[in-house]
């Protein structure tokens, strides 16, 4: 049982750890992530020579505690990841379901719009929107959502197209079910397994995108600790103080690895093709 669901166990454990970090940040972090102690700048991690016992992972270029910043940074990753995935999922599913179910003009319009969005590289849209709106957490979520809903839309539309031909849908309609009711009660619930898989993968991509945008200086304002902005600020010190980039880099890597693992495990379970192979 454990072996079979190992991907889910490990991925899930990492995701839970991330949630614990994010939610419990005020209790877990040993220092205020914004507190600068200029006299203690660029202290190496505790286990290195001249490391300080007060700072487990060392301090950054302004004497802020690296560990606390990474813990608080998980809040942003988590918030942006979850909010974007939910919002984009909602919009994408609604539009996709409508397009697939009603077909004709509705389908035409939704498909064309999503094709326009698909024509641009995902990060490019996000950069353009951020450059237009300016820095900020909500702008960031909005930008990522706008560039992320299409994936849901395409998949849900495809699924709904095949589902609506099935007998149980015809039966529901024959019993007098209204379109809205049939769609919500009988069609959409059947797409949930695909949506779950897309959502996990999307979350990983969104977390990386947030880090990329923050790295480029287009994410949240400079003083808020995020993994991407920590990498960005630390990279000019990569020769003198490599821990400024290694730890946030590892945080991003582990998080994205965990989420991808979870998504992969879920797909193994939900995907009928893969199930048959085993």
């Amino acid at each position, binding site marked *: 049982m454990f072996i079979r669901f190992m991907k889910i166990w490990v991925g899930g454990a990492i995701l839970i750890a991330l949630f614990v970090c994010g939610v419990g940040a005020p209790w877990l972090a040993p220092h205020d992530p*914004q*507190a*600068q102690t*200029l*006299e203690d*700048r*660029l202290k190496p991690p505790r286990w290195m020579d001249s490391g300080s016992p007060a700072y487990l992972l060392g301090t950054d*270029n*302004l*004497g802020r505690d690296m560990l606390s910043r990474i813990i608080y940074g998980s809040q942003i990753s988590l918030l942006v990841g979850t909010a974007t995935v939910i919002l984009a999922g909602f919009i994408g599913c609604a539009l996709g379901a409508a397009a697939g179910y009603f077909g004709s003009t509705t389908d035409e319009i939704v498909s064309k719009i999503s094709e326009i969005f698909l024509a641009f590289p995902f990060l490019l849209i996000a950069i353009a929107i951020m450059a237009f709106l300016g*820095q900020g957490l909500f702008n960031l979520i909005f930008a990522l959502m706008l560039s992320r809903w299409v994936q849901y839309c395409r998949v849900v539309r495809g699924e709904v197209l095949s589902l609506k031909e099935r007998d149980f849908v015809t039966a529901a309609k024959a019993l007098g079910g209204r379109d809205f009711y049939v769609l919500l009660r009988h069609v959409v619930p059947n797409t949930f397994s695909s949506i779950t898989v897309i959502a996990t993968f999307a979350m990983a991509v969104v977390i990386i995108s947030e880090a990329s945008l923050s790295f480029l*200086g287009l994410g949240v*304002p*400079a*003083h808020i600790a995020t993994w991407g902005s920590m990498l960005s*600020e630390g*990279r*000019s*010190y*990569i*020769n*003198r103080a490599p821990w400024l980039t290694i730890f946030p880099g590892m945080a991003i890597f582990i998080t994205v690895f965990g989420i991808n693992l979870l998504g992969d495990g879920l797909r193994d379970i939900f995907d009928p093709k893969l199930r048959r192979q085993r």
Partner: protein
Amino acid sequence: MANETGGITRRDFLKQGAALGAGALVGPYIARAAFAASRDRVTIYHSSVADSIHPYNHSSSPIYGNWQHVIEPLVEFDTTKKDFVGVLAESWEFEGKRWVFKLRKGVKFHSGAPLTSRDVVFSVDKMRDTKGGSLQAPNFKDVTEMQTPDDQTVIFVTKQPIATFLDRVENRFVVSKEAAEKAGDPWYRNLVGSGPYKLVSYQRGGNMVFTRHDDYWGGKAAIKEVVFRKVTEDAARLAALESGQADFINNVPIHEVARLKRHPRVRIDQIEGLRMFFLTMNVGFKPFDNKLVRQAVNYSIDAPSIVKNIFDGIGYPVNGPVGPNVIGADPKLKRYPYDPKKAKELLTQAGYPDGCDVQFYYSAGRYPKDREVCQVIAAQMVKGGFRVELISQEWALFWGRDGVNGGKLPFYYIGRGSLTDADTLYDQYFRTGTTKRCNYSNPEFDKLILEQQKTPETKKRVALLQQAGKILMEEVPFVPLYNLADIYGAAKNLTWKKRPDERILGSDMGIK
């Protein structure tokens, strides 16, 4: 060359292997040769390069250095002699409300046409054309008339006597009127000057190429081609220098200096800079209209700690409104001590017992470690009772008509380069109406500035500037911070005249 199975034949494998081996042997030598700077071309990676092809669409020391390759000023400040020397002007005379410049004989433009007084007047007219995009107009606001009695003489008539006029014309570069008129619209499309280099190309975003003008009146330069590239990222400039891609870079990060001093092909040059860094509070915005708030900001910022910790002590905090080496400095003035408690008290007195919100602007990548400095300043201000929103803008936006020069920014981090005389700073930032950068207005202060500008004797002028400085320190429309050392990195065999005015000129360079 691939055979039918899609692999490679034995012969091909041997050939390619041999080529690879030869490359591995020769490669390091080629690479080493590439590291040395060459007489044919010097590549300079700089954090600020002209943002526009309009030669007067800026007012910034390093960018004056860009244009000075092509077009030249009447006079220039020689930082070693500590006095003005003539470039296109041979001599000059201060006659009350008139400044008379005699042009150098035998100066020719790249087109072959001789320099005349009409070219000077044409250029100044373009500098005064604010609508046409010039940011240099304030330098001539007191000039009522320009006269050209003959080809070699230009007379500037001013509203009142201005003893410090040379300071304002030192960076005003002269273009060829004939060539500009021929170019049509815009006039700077075909820029012809008299400088040691000709402009080959300009690309938006800061990529400039100059090639030597062999018939330069001052003698042929040693370097044939000079390339400027704008790279705002410290690490990218440094990597380019270390790999031999760039021969010269500015703003070497301080924390890398020790390592680079051991580098076999790189030399580090450290020069005490003329640039003073400060924070401007635009008094046209709330809460900076209130003197107590401005004083509170001064009390809440610990500049000595920034110099010591962020800049590893390479520089010094400024006591009073300007640094100690500037004409008009007052050794008796002291900066506001770091005292966040006092700052909070003042804020309460000013009617902000719960603190107040400020938006703090800067342009990341422009100045050494600006991102870090501004974060530290913001954190220090929070301790002083402010709530700070830190906003970074791209330089052209930050500095332009929607930013500093349009009076649109309430509070910002800035450096004034080539600061040798307090008059420059006081007139440009704090005298009523010169620029919109601060919107400060104080008739008493204006009077002192006008008075000293009329005074040719330095001693009297310094006394007046000191009085003006005292007013500034009481009213503090700004927070004077520090002067830093300019740190340049160069290929070891590249020589240049170290200049404290941030100008990097191909004509100053040579190859050892």
